[in-house]
């Protein structure tokens, strides 16, 4: 019996090792398709299937809009078949796995961001098409290079910092802004806050009126981190914060602005400025409570309006502000944290001209203007008006001297698990500003080894 068992066990091990040996590494080893000539690619657009990534979820007006754009292309190019694939956050792991296997979408999101070191690899490995030759061509409708169509503020996101090649074209902008309930502000005679002192004064007035000043979610740490991110932008400055948190260059104790920012955040917490029960509130519920008038303000991405379109009361008066300036702050007082939602093209796409045509059509002034009006998306294309659902957003963007990368690139860094949990502890009242700084210092030194 012992011999039989040994034989069986041996067979199983041999079988599994053989299978393991057959497994091989990642990647399909396919050779890249020859990109079309930059000068004549529009004449090369032909039918056939392509798969394009889209950010809106099924059943939304935003997706319906994009489907209409796709239908227009299919009508103009017989045989063209554009398949929409959900490419937002929750789908990314599976889609990235497809890219690793050499089967990436023809057009996809989140594959490149020139301001995020962790996202340069796809471009460096040759997986993405360099779009610069195409963007340099003169657009027949405007008579200017296609690239000139985009706001110069987004070029840093589109462009590889060292090679200067372009791997992403923005379909929309996501800006971190302070939304406020203008009706509620008027009702209580409160002025929308331009400075941090205004913000804390507004919080006091709302508390006195029995309204929670600020809606925030406690169940998604990066959204609480928007507060520390923006405060540090004002008290420390983008470059220094990015270096310390994401790159591990220097320590968080080097600049007193980090502690000052945490103390400011603690001040808000100690005023009970955040939504009652925010610790157990999901972001959808927090956003809904803001639109129900249960809180005066919410710091959120500009996608808030299109995302919550179905629950915003018709008479709701929405206001939009840039994050308040900090008097005496040594950081950037006028810059904004933002993300350009970039579309990239697979270098292995079997139909690169049609993929480029999708990008061209989505980013055309005509489509972007309709999209801003109907869906409420903020455009990165020059000459496109602000969405009517986001009154004043164009003024806010115009006042910003620079757009800086949201989250400092932390979301794809191992420092994310250090920074945002500590900020959550501060907001939850589990530690004060000094203890938060010490914990951040310890954690960052551990992950960055400095």
């Amino acid at each position, binding site marked *: 019996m012992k011999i039989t068992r040994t034989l*069986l066990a041996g067979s199983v091990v041999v079988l*599994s090792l053989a*299978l393991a040996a057959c497994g091989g590494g990642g990647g399909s080893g396919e050779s890249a398709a020859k990109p079309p000539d930059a000068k004549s690619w529009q004449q090369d657009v032909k039918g056939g299937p392509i798969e394009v990534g889209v950010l809106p979820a099924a059943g939304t007006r935003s997706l319906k809009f994009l489907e209409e754009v796709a239908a227009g292309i299919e009508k103009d190019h017989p045989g063209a078949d554009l398949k929409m694939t959900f490419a937002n956050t929750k789908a990314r*792991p599976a889609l990235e796995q497809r890219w690793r296997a050499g089967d990436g979408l023809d057009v996809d999101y989140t594959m490149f961001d020139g301001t995020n070191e962790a996202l340069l*690899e*796809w471009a460096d490995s040759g997986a993405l098409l360099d779009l610069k030759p195409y963007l340099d061509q003169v657009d027949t409708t405007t008579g200017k290079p296609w690239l000139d169509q985009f706001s110069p503020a987004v070029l840093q996101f589109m462009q590889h910092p060292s090679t200067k090649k372009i791997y992403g074209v923005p379909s929309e902008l996501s800006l971190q802004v302070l939304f406020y309930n203008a009706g509620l502000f008027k009702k209580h005679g409160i002025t929308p806050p331009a400075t941090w002192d205004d913000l804390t004064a507004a919080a006091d007035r709302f508390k006195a009126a029995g309204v929670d000043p600020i809606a925030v979610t406690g169940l998604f740490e990066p959204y609480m981190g928007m507060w520390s991110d923006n405060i540090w932008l004002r008290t420390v400055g983008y470059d220094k914060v990015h270096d310390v948190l994401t790159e591990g260059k220097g320590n968080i104790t080097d600049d007193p602005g980090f502690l000052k920012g945490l103390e400011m955040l603690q001040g808000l917490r100690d005023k009970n400025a955040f939504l009652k029960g925010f*610790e157990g*509130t*999901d972001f959808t519920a927090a956003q809904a409570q803001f639109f129900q008038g249960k809180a005066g303000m919410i710091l959120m991405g500009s996608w808030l309006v299109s995302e919550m379109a179905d629950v915003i009361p018709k008479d709701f008066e929405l206001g939009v502000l840039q994050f308040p300036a900090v008097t005496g702050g040594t950081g950037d007082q006028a810059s904004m944290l933002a993300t350009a939602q970039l579309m990239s093209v697979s270098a292995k796409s079997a139909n690169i001209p049609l993929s480029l045509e999708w990008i061209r059509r989505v980013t055309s002034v005509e489509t972007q203007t309709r999209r801003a009006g109907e869906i409420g998306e903020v455009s990165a294309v020059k000459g496109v008006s602000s969405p009517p659902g986001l009154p004043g957003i164009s003024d806010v963007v115009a006042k910003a001297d620079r757009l800086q990368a949201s989250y400092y690139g932390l979301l794809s860094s191992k420092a994310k698990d250090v920074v945002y949990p500590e900020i*959550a502890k501060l907001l939850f009242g589990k530690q004060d500003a000094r203890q938060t700084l010490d914990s951040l210092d310890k954690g960052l030194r551990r992950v960055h080894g400095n």
Partner: protein
Amino acid sequence: MHKAAQRRIIIPFLIPALALLGVFFLYPLVKTVDLSLNEFSRTGTMRFVGLDQYRLLAGDPDFFNSLKNTFLITLIGSGMLFPPAMAIAWALSQRIHGERFFRFVVFAPVVLSVAVVSLMWKFLYHPTLGLINPALKSMGLGALAKTWLGDPATALAAVTFVSVWHGIGIWIVLLCAGFERLPTDVLQAARIDGAGEWRVFRSIMLPMMRDLLRMLAILWVVQSLQSFAFVYILTGGGPFGSTDTVGTLMYRIAFDRADFGYAAAIGVVLVAVMLAAAKILDKVMKRDDLQY
């Protein structure tokens, strides 16, 4: 001669099972060990680093926190699961009116998807919009109202409760089957001898079901050590890591950071921990077989 022939006959019948075991367990296991010895880039290229990932793991406080939470879920969950499951199964094994209806009620949550159950409980737990806190307040128990998922003191238990609520029907069905297998003549004899129902339960039923309970305990430990979906949807591992399990940590490292080598090392350690826990539990609970 006859026995040797019998053994030879068994082998062809084992091959399909062995092939499945090889393809779906041993191959992934060997492959995971292989992955854990490498460092990955975001694009999937790998570089052999030997045991470096395991050395990093040994000094990673996030890993030990997630391991602690995983064991806590196992422990707290067993307290939430087995006593009520046993009580309900015992009750359902009695002749009660509407027994089939009650069986349906306790089994119903099992057929719901994890996502649906999680979203429903996320709403029920909501501190101001949910149903639990207002219900407690209306009963004069406002002091017990909590921010269930937002408080590190209650979040782990709250998530574990949802997981138990969802799956308890299966355990009840298994325990019901155990009760039904018990020899009625032995139970009748005890009752005729004057034993009360509690005495019958404690001194006869429980000892006779020991093998089943041992198996269920091992199954629970293995299942709860793999906790992932409920935690991922309800809290994402928060607040500040208080519900982070080995499963959620491994997922985050693999897919947020594309650090597949490190995630594979965590997976290998988890498999080792599960095998060890199952073996220890089996040894501790093992008694001589009862034949009935």
